[in-house]
């Protein structure tokens, strides 16, 4: 769906969310990321390649180079480089364009899976987190390690740079969100989101973790998501949960839950109007859950055709891509549908 250049930008209306685009991949999908110019959506799948989907045409280009699943994807702001991290311990820098893209740089980034990658707002730093319980900062220009940041006591599931670029946030399996000073690598404080972690004694498993992080556009809130009510972790019996904290005071102000939804909160993003969106997926199906900070319950719940596994926000802030176990990429608009073209009267 395209809108006329120069026309007023449609207003966000979450309750009017609708799917505009569906593309089918050959294997189930894992992660996704828009490039900053909004030309492409990058995805990864349950084999080893990365896919680049041209938004305008749906044309798919395959990137091969990883030895295992790609778990997260991020783009540098200049739109020239995309970075992927995977279960093969590596981080790969790729060109965003080209018909047969080859790795620019391959780095053994962590010992064990690299689960998360983020790019600083100025594009100079890359942050990764992995199964070695470490957070690492890398120079985005040459890929050199800038700093290794120990401190987590479980696998690092998510990372996010604060919009000021001064801080890095990282969330782990135990439900701890740490705020680091980017310049020094020192721990500033920890947000205790242990509600996102479960240890099930009868199944003897740790489960949950901070799957997604987001900072509100006004900088007032930190949101993190995952799951709770994990009565049967091995059987996917759990519900998504979003925890909302005041950034300054660290006070938890809200637990966002969605009635009747089973699954995991995989990813979070804020729309420009302050609406918090959580992509959930699991045994209850896939949803886009829309929250406002003054209410614990969602004000809208958009059912997706299949369980969602990840979400990315288009630079226009009006489109959300979700990727799915049924191999489909789906792009949804959080606006009203444009009016249908007027029917041309038939000539009599």
């Amino acid at each position: 769906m395209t809108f006329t250049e120069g026309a007023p930008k449609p207003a966000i209306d979450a309750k009017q969310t609708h799917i505009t685009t569906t593309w089918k991949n050959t294997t189930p999908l894992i992660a996704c990321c828009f490039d900053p110019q909004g030309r492409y959506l990058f995805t990864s799948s349950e084999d080893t390649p990365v896919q680049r989907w041209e938004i305008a045409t749906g044309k798919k280009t395959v990137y091969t180079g990883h030895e295992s699943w790609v778990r997260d994807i991020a783009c540098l702001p200049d739109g020239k480089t995309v970075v992927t991290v995977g279960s093969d311990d590596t981080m790969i820098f790729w060109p965003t364009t080209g018909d047969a893209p080859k790795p620019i740089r391959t780095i053994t980034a962590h010992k064990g899976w690299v689960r998360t990658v983020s790019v600083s707002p100025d594009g100079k730093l890359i942050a990764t987190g992995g199964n070695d319980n470490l957070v690492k900062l890398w120079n985005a220009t040459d890929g050199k390690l800038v700093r290794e940041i120990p401190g987590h006591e479980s696998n690092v599931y998510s990372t996010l740079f604060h919009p000021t670029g001064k801080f890095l946030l990282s969330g782990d399996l135990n439900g701890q969100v740490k705020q680091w000073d980017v310049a020094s690598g020192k721990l500033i404080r920890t947000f205790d989101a242990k509600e996102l972690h479960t240890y099930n004694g009868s199944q003897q498993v740790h489960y949950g973790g901070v799957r997604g992080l987001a900072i509100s556009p006004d900088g007032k809130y930190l949101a993190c998501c995952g799951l709770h009510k994990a009565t049967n972790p091995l059987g996917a019996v759990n519900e998504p949960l979003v925890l909302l904290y005041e950034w300054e005071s660290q006070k938890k102000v809200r637990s966002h839950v969605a009635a009747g939804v089973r699954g995991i909160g995989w990813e979070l993003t804020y729309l420009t109007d302050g609406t918090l969106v959580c992509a959930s997926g699991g045994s209850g199906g896939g949803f886009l859950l829309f929250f406002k900070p003054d209410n614990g319950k969602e004000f809208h719940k958009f059912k997706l055709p299949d369980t969602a596994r990840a979400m990315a926000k288009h630079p226009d802030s009006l489109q959300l891509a979700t990727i799915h176990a049924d191999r489909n990429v789906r792009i949804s608009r959080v606006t009203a549908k444009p009016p249908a073209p007027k029917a041309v009267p038939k000539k009599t």
Partner: protein
Amino acid sequence: MKCKYACQSDEHTFARRQFLGGMAGGIVGGLGAMTQPAVAAKLVKEQKRVLVVYMSGGLSQLESWDPKPKTDTGGPFRAIPTAVPGIHISELLPSTAKLMNHLSLIRSINTKNNDHGKGRYQMTHGRNKMPGADFPHFGAVSAKALSPADSGLPGHIRVSNGGGGNRGNDAAYLGPKFASVTVGGKPPKNSARDKSLTPTADQLRNSFRKKMNEGFSAKRRTAETDAYTYSYEQAQQLMAKRDIFDVTKEPAKDLERYGKYDFGRHCLLARRLLENGLPFVQVSHSNYDTHNENFNFHLEQVGEFDRSFAALISDLNTRGLLESTLVVVMSEFGRTPRINKYYGRDHWGTAWSVCLGGGRIKPGAVIGKTNKNGTAVTDRQVDHGHLFHTYLAAVGLDSSASFDIGGRPIPMADPSMGPIEELLS
């Protein structure tokens, strides 16, 4: 007047008296009950043992013994080389990979079953569960066939958290003496002399009992009175050896090496029990029933398994016990090659694997094969019946032999099957 043994009680705690109660079935002396006494005598001389590591819930063969990396079913883990050239296993098993020259794999199991209960029964009893028929657990068979006749200890041990001596009901026609006893790292309950009883008083009490028994037996000796007497003798041995069950007697540095978590402690206890001549020990690791987030959970579980299991295999080898101890890592089934919507794998008995070693198992062997993405067996298909025969043969038993149960021969293993001969040395 007949003695009332504790087995008549509803209480299932393996107290000393209940252990004695198991004797009331009238089968005394495991090897003596076999139909081939000559074989039994040989086994007494060269005692064999069995260690089962039970991966409860269904270990994924793709995340362990038969990885299929870079396929549509392979998942995120890579395969790594092992101590045996050409054999690759999951990267989740780096320590075990270094010991693969002591172990072997069967990658072609098709048990045609996806049910937990039926699968557990198949793999631990060697037969399908059928209405109206019950067969003894592998542990009961081992206890009966491999226990020295003069053993004062239970021969069929399961190690589990909180196990205080619970007695199982899994010996079928072999009788309760061979049923499992569950221990958790401490001596069985009530196996210590009561504090109010001095050693001298205890000795006097036993002497008096013996004297009375002898007087009674001289006039009215029966099989029951013999069993009664024997039970007391066994109980005394159990009391004397109760520390065998106490894992805290093992060096702290060994616990460090095995891992300070339940499975690490249980493996260390298994070593202690096997070293002390107990013929069958089963350690379980839980839980692999990963319909959801199979990869995160296998990462967590298999990593824990690898450390403790490798420490145990290494110790059994360096202490000279591996030659006489069959080791089997089994589950009730494997897991589906297809990855479900929740990154899970479901139940799969069609093409999966076990790992085994020790005893007569040829080290470094791989039996059977699955196709490229693990969805079917392509070579040397076997099932639980073949495996059960192989286990028995690996500890020197003739798996086609029968137990003599009240004058009736009952085959130890399914007579329509046989062992995997090429896996046996």
